[in-house]
């Protein structure tokens, strides 16, 4: 397996190999392998309970996987084995940021402060781990101003600039979703993991989200997203991975996945013994 990581080509940003996660008697993920390409939007879809969020939690360190290897390959060529890092180190060193299915903002802090907290590690270093900053020496002032500029950039991108000084808890649901993405982007990630970013958005908001996510991809950040909203998935993703019962059932371009009989069976619920039938019919159709 070690040879696998060293020969990993540079356009692969994330490689998950033989990942398993067991909760007591439940095998939430069973021997899952997948890859995400650099500069692409990879979508992870599947019916409820398929184990999508568990995969996310393993990648971002909130769960320690029972088995398997997760390799992150940075632009610079540095590699990190994510299953060996603590959750905060994954964001700090490996540069993987994430959002949550149920939004987790600092609701009592203002929108701007939320984005400044995200730049904690950079500012900590600039302030000499608080000591130099407290004495007023060093580059803290300059870095703090730069942090506010960075926050301003992402606020404009996320269309939140007018709400910058309001408490985050005061924003509408859609705006909170966008703020959470902007906050994750302020950590300067190479890979951004989004857990259902379009959940609860109206069509207009979901359109704006598509534009925001494409903008993020075009700036060089790769995305991995879990999504139920197929209009978002099919519209923006370059690559789709389908999970069911903790196993990968399909992998490919949106068009390929859309027509995969296994996926259709998983989503529309075909009887187990009929699955074979569906597949064979499909194969016959292809042969004709």
């Amino acid at each position, binding site marked *: 397996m070690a040879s696998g990581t060293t020969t990993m080509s540079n356009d692969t940003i994330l490689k998950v190999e033989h990942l398993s996660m067991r909760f007591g008697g439940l095998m939430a993920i069973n021997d899952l392998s997948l890859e995400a390409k650099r500069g692409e939007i990879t979508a992870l879809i599947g019916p409820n309970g398929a184990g999508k969020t568990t995969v996310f939690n393993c990648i971002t360190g909130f769960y320690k996987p029972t088995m398997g290897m997760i390799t992150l390959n940075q632009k610079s060529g540095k590699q990190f084995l994510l299953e060996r890092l603590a959750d*905060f*180190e994954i*964001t700090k060193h490996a540069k993987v940021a994430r959002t949550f299915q149920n939004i987790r*903002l600092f609701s009592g*802090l203002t929108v701007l*402060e939320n984005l400044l907290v995200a730049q904690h590690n950079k*500012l900590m270093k600039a*302030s000499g781990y608080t000591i130099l900053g407290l004495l007023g020496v060093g580059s803290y002032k300059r870095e703090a101003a730069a942090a506010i500029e960075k926050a301003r950039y992402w606020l404009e991108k996320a269309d939140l600039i007018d709400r*910058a000084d309001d408490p985050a808890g005061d924003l509408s649901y859609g705006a909170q979703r966008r703020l959470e993405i902007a906050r994750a982007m302020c950590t300067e990630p190479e890979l951004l993991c989004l857990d259902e970013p379009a959940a609860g958005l109206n069509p207009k908001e979901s359109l704006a989200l598509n534009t925001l996510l494409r903008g993020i991809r075009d700036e060089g950040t790769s995305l991995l997203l879990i999504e139920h909203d197929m209009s978002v998935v099919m519209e923006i993703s370059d690559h789709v991975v389908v999970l069911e019962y903790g196993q990968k059932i399909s992998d490919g371009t949106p068009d390929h996945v859309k027509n995969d009989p296994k996926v259709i069976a998983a989503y529309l619920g075909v009887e187990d013994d009929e699955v074979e039938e569906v597949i064979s019919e499909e194969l016959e159709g292809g042969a004709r």
Partner: protein
Amino acid sequence: MTEQNFPATPGLMAKALKEGIFAGVLALGMFLLYVGIKTDQNINNELIWYPRWGLLAIFVLVAGIGRFLIVGFVAPHINQRRLAKAKAGIPEVSEDKGFFRKHFLKIALVALVLYPPVVMSIYGTQGSLKFVDNFGIQILIYVMLAWGLNVVVGLAGLLDLGYVAFYAVGAYSYALLSDLFGLSFWVLLPIAGILAAFWGIILGFPVLRLRGDYLAIVTLAFGEIIRLVLINWTDVTHGTAGISGVAKASIFGIWSFDVGASNNFAKSFGLPMSSAYYKIFLFYVILALCMLTAYVTLRLRRMPIGRAWEALREDEIACRSLGINTVMTKLTAFAIGAMFGGFAGSFFAARQGFVSPESFVFLESAVILAIVVLGGMGSLTGIAIAAIAMVGGTELLREMEFLKLIFGPDFTPELYRMLLFGLAMIAVMLFKPRGFVGSREPTAFLKERKAVSGSFTKEGHG
């Protein structure tokens, strides 16, 4: 005239009378056994009881007449004013603050600096002692302790019920080290702070995994452990007897306050001997320490570590997803809070000249925490006001000799201070559930600084 002020609300007086009588009956029911009957032991160790109808009548009358006045006069008057304001189109909360509110902090600071000389010129050197010591120093010690605890509870959202342990560490550090090595107050003050911070980290490590109630229980236990060690390690701490004759602080070694010393402050300036000078000096020392605490806290809030504390209070998991090392963040909060507790402790030892485990019981922790919660978690101004109300209020009760005229010569107002404490807490929590100052000031802004309403901030859960 009255007609205009209180437009005829038919049946208002009847309603007020009814509610007044109802309140009176309620008070009678509530206080009949508590106040109306006093139990005692006679010389044969038998239980005897006798009624106190007079006192009971006072309680009932106060409740009944109070309710009558509120319903009949106060409430209509307030409604009237609100109505008039609404008609005039003035919003309930006026936007431009008056001169006093704008410059509140400066005015308060100047008033505090001028307080000892003003009191001295009014009451004389000896007479000022009570005001400077009981009202000045006592309150400021609690302000400092509460501001220190505020870092842990108010900013980082970690419920610490054993804060008095760090106060004790600071006090004993000063008392023991000055006794053993003869070091001066100004050398030992930072050492006491560092030692307390060290204990803060020691406490911090094991409790980092705990959250909410569990954290509160462990910190409570830690406070008790320190106290029990102080009681039982008699070789070093002299147990319950405590350490007496703790060295006084000096003015940077130039002037001393020891009566026999050749560089005695009063002697050097040809003033009459009095302990008031020492107290006034201590007043300025604790004032400076308070200002240091406030300055450091305010500066830290604008630093990344301070923001991380507040973020930790809001959502710990989100913090970790942003690459913040929550372990280090919690430890620094514990250490900094403990350091201020240590400073206050060494000051306490220098002021008292005597330390014993008696001073560091759980009640002290509870009072400090109550001040933080009452003041509004995170707000320095609110906490200072709460400290004045809580500590100054109880000191004031000692002065209420005239209450004896109402409740009889046996009445000792100090005994009721805990009752009043509780009443005050309930009242504040009813009317201002987020404390005196519930809103929080943002640490950075793009266009304008808007206070964040208390309804958005969280109390923390760990």
